[in-house]
């Protein structure tokens, strides 16, 4: 059937095509596929589905190279979320997603709806969400606009997750001018399910009914997907009506109803209506099942009158889903939704005829042959070339940067670093997140290098963490990509878990720029190498490109969301020192590397030098050493060295838990050949600081795995402070100084601008 234009549809002109973000070639491709001029509705559909956000047209060829296999992977990339088996008949579904552009325009709603979207991705697999994480990147807190964004984003994440009753248990936050105009807001959700309840988003069964479930469709967020595929310019302000408003209460009902629906066996597929709404969810479901579908837009429950098929198909109203109900069970599906005060309407059908057809009542308004709408999307292999400017930055000799006069006292430098917002405690953020609901949180935010959740009915635990140092990736994308995975693995190993699998969110700039595509390609290669070496396949993720503002691209930031498994959750290990007199052991080896460090950025305002080398064999050995020591019950604490290097890491072991400060006395004389600032603040990889009452046993395990390890000192009572012997001096830091630098930095910065915060707070009617 050939669709006819609707009365009032604009005529298809080159300008209209361009406005829809289609290139000349893409438009020709479309005309070829159809064998005719598209209707306005069809143009809208293609514009959404072939947007970068939905089609991955610049990234798919490279994503295909990521390692995705392990015996325990039940579902790799391509579904709403990845799924791994954890034994005992249980599985874990998890996924990370970005909401960068919406958050830049309206931080509260942008972040909130980001959380809502990733929750739906997990519960549409049949999993009950048990934890949320968030990975955030902002510009400097000196900027009022940044503080406004931070306040709004954090409140948006909190309000949504808190209302859902899903604890937010971990994350990571960094501040750097590179993110000033384009913050990154990545949210990760983790859910648990019985293996036999896993359901996929694959339309099947000719005659089965396609039902729209949950909230009604309004005019919000039309063209959000293509919006997410553009640079953020001043022009974005004009696009503000596209903002979507989240309703976590409806989502909570949708969650309960969906899980009940899946358990009932009345549905064969469930799909979140996310970016590009009904269009993308229905077309992708059809493509996965390789079936035809027909949708009648008049049957879609709408919130506003007079909505056109174009609007209904492209709306990004939140809290909606598409399900495929077994023919004849529609009433049963409706009854389950009604119990939760939600509606479900039949809007279409799975058909034998190989077409994707949209009607408005009897009138066909869009029709595409087979599943070619999805499969014929263009793919690009852009040129890649490293930027000369970045090569020059990387090659700069950062050891030649003279120390400031105050740095003669290294304790001063340490204290300053502890108040760098990237390093400082993130409690100001996570005290706005319910982290204890569901009563499974064994280690919550700030308690350990990763969060630990117990798994009821077993002795096991899950360890979860997000990580990525975009500065490393910027200065050397291959190495930075490796480190992102290695650090995430190290963090879950520090709490006692075996790293299992990752999800990832690739936040990059405009891929048609060769220097950006180079970063993308190399970072992915580095990630892949690390995933192979560490045995952590990629089960899914999200790509967010065009993260640019007039000031330029963000640091390339491939955020890693790592899932690890503890066999015995009672072994979960915190990061803070516990018992005075415990031996302190440094696993791994300091180096003279200082490049790309937080020290250079925060103390000297320099982003340069090569990031530290990342030896993946050693990283794996470190992970195994930590895992074995913790499972033998030997470690009282474990914390890896990351931003700020050894000195910051040990200071964190002393003061991270403000209710139980501990001192420490350590001697770094064995490395006196190294320059003291590299030794103290360099960010050599593959290191962790552990405390134990049985140093011999830990050293023996390290030796067995072939990693350097040395007993460097002892835990002390709090009144003895932190003492580090370095290059013949005793560097003394009173704990109260370190503690207040670390704990008060972000609250103090955020207090500076009540005005902007209040406006964020008032924005949604939620009160202070």
């Amino acid at each position, binding site marked *: 059937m050939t669709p006819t234009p609707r009365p009032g549809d604009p005529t298809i002109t080159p300008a209209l095509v361009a406005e829809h973000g289609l290139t000349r070639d893409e438009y020709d491709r479309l005309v070829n596929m159809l064998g005719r001029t598209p209707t306005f509705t069809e143009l809208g559909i293609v514009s959404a589905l072939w947007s970068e956000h939905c089609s991955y047209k610049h990234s798919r060829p490279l994503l295909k190279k990521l390692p995705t296999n392990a015996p325990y992977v039940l579902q790799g990339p391509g579904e709403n979320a990845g799924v791994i088996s954890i034994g005992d008949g249980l599985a874990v579904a998890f996924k990370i997603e970005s909401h960068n552009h919406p958050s830049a325009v309206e931080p509260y709603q942008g972040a909130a709806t980001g959380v809502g979207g990733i929750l739906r991705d997990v519960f549409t697999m049949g999993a009950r969400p048990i934890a949320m994480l968030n990975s955030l990147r902002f510009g400097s807190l000196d900027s009022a606009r940044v503080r406004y964004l931070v306040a709004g984003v954090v*409140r948006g994440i909190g309000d949504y997750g*808190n*209302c*859902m*009753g899903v604890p937010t248990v971990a994350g990571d936050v960094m501040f750097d001018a590179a993110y000033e105009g384009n913050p990154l807001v990545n949210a990760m959700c983790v859910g648990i399910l019985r293996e036999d309840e896993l359901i996929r988003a694959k339309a099947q069964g000719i005659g089965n009914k396609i039902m729209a479930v949950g909230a009604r469709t309004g005019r919000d967020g039309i063209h959000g997907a293509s919006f997410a595929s553009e640079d953020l310019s001043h022009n974005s302000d004009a696009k503000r009506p596209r903002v979507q408003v989240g309703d976590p209460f409806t989502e909570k*009902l949708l969650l309960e109803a969906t899980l009940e629906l899946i358990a009932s066996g009345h549905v064969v597929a469930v799909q979140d209506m996310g970016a590009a709404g009904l269009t993308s969810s229905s077309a992708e479901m059809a493509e996965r099942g390789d079936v035809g579908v027909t949708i009648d837009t008049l049957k879609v429950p709408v919130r506003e009158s007079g909505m056109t098929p174009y609007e209904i198909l492209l709306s990004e109203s939140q809290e909606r889903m598409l399900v495929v109900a077994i023919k004849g069970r529609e009433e049963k599906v409706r009854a389950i939704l009604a119990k939760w005060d939600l509606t479900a309407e039949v809007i279409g059908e799975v058909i034998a005829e190989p077409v994707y057809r949209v009607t408005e009542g009897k009138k066909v308004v869009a029709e595409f042959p087979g599943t070619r709408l999805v499969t014929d999307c263009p793919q690009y292999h852009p040129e890649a070339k490293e930027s000369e400017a970045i090569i020059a930055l990387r090659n700069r000799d950062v050891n030649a940067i003279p120390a400031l006069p105050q740095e003669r006292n290294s304790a001063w430098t340490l204290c300053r670093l502890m108040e760098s917002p990237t390093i400082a405690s993130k409690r100001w953020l996570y005290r706005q997140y319910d*982290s204890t609901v569901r*009563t499974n949180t064994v280690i919550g935010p700030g308690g350990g290098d990763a969060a630990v959740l117990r798994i009821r009915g077993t002795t096991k635990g899950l360890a979860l963490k997000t990580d990525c140092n975009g500065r490393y990736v910027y200065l050397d994308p291959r190495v930075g990509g490796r480190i992102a995975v290695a650090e995430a693995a190290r963090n879950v190993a520090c709490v006692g878990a075996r790293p299992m699998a990752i999800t990832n969110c690739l936040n990059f700039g405009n891929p048609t720029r060769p220097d950006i595509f180079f970063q993308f390609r190399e970072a992915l290669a580095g990630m892949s190498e690390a995933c192979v070496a560490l045995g952590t396949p990629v089960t899914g993720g999200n790509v967010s490109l065009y993260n640019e503002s007039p000031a330029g691209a963000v640091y390339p930031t491939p955020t890693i969301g790592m899932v690890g498994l503890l066999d015995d959750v009672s072994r979960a290990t915190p990061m803070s020192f516990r018992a005075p007199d415990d031996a302190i052991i440094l696993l791994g080896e300091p180096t003279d590397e200082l490049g790309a460090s937080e020290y250079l950025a925060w103390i000297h305002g320099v982003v340069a030098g090569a990031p530290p080398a990342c030896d993946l064999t050693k990283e794996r050995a470190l992970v195994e050493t930590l895992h074995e020591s913790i499972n033998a019950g030997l470690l009282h604490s474990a914390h890896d060295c990351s931003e700020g290097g050894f000195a910051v890491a040990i200071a964190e072991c002393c003061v991270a838990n403000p209710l139980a400060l501990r001192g420490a006395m350590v001697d770094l004389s064995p490395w006196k050949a190294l320059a003291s600032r590299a030794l103290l603040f360099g960010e050599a990889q593959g290191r962790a600081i552990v405390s134990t009452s049985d140093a011999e046993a830990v050293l023996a395990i390290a030796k067995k795995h072939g990693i350097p390890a040395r007993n460097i000192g002892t835990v002390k009572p709090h009144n003895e402070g932190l003492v580090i012997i370095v290059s013949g001096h005793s560097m003394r830091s009173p704990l109260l100084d370190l503690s207040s630098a670390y704990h008060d930095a972000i609250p103090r910065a955020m207090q500076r601008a009540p005005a902007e915060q209040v406006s964020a707070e008032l924005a949604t009617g939620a009160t202070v």
Partner: protein
Amino acid sequence: MKVGIVRFPGSNCEDDAFHAVVYQLGEEAVMLWHKDHDLQGSDVIILPGGFSYGDYLRAGAIARFSPIMSEVAAHAKNGGIVLGICNGFQIACEAGLLPGALLHNDVGYRSMPVTIRVEHANTAFTSAAKVGQCLTMPIAHGEGRFAASEDLLDELESNAQVLFRYVDASGETTVDANPNGAMRSIAGICNAARNVIGLMPHPERAVDPILGSDDGLVLFESLLVAAHA
């Protein structure tokens, strides 16, 4: 003892209460659906935490009209024990089962451990605790600032209805130890008949040492004593 836990749309701590009663206390618990009118013979009713009806308008304002609330009110009137935790406390206040109101925190949403002091042991929920005993457990709420007129506050004090106050590590009420600006540091109260109890902190999240505290257990154990009395 049979505990009935009411599930409102938007409740999200009902499973936690269930686990505390069934696995930690070893007693029987049933989930009660808010649209039903049957308490299924429960001795104790728990109104759990969460965001009933999204906490839209005011926390607890809409949930109090759920069909089951008339049964809960009748149960309370007959002397039956009703425990409102967090959102359940807000619902109980809105329903008039408890005096006062819970307003927005003075500082925004707060999720963190707090210490509360038991002020009176002569209720179904505190009998196993000692007066002055300090208990550590999480809070997680945005609308927990207890408020009432000065007269009502005086009356609550003189009737020994203030059951829990926020305190610091040394057991003293201070401005810093009060996480939400609650009047007179009030964390929990009971009604005049002492059978309806409400508190903002989450004792059901503090019943297992692996989660950091099992200080909440003593409160649930009190219920056992009362139910078997």
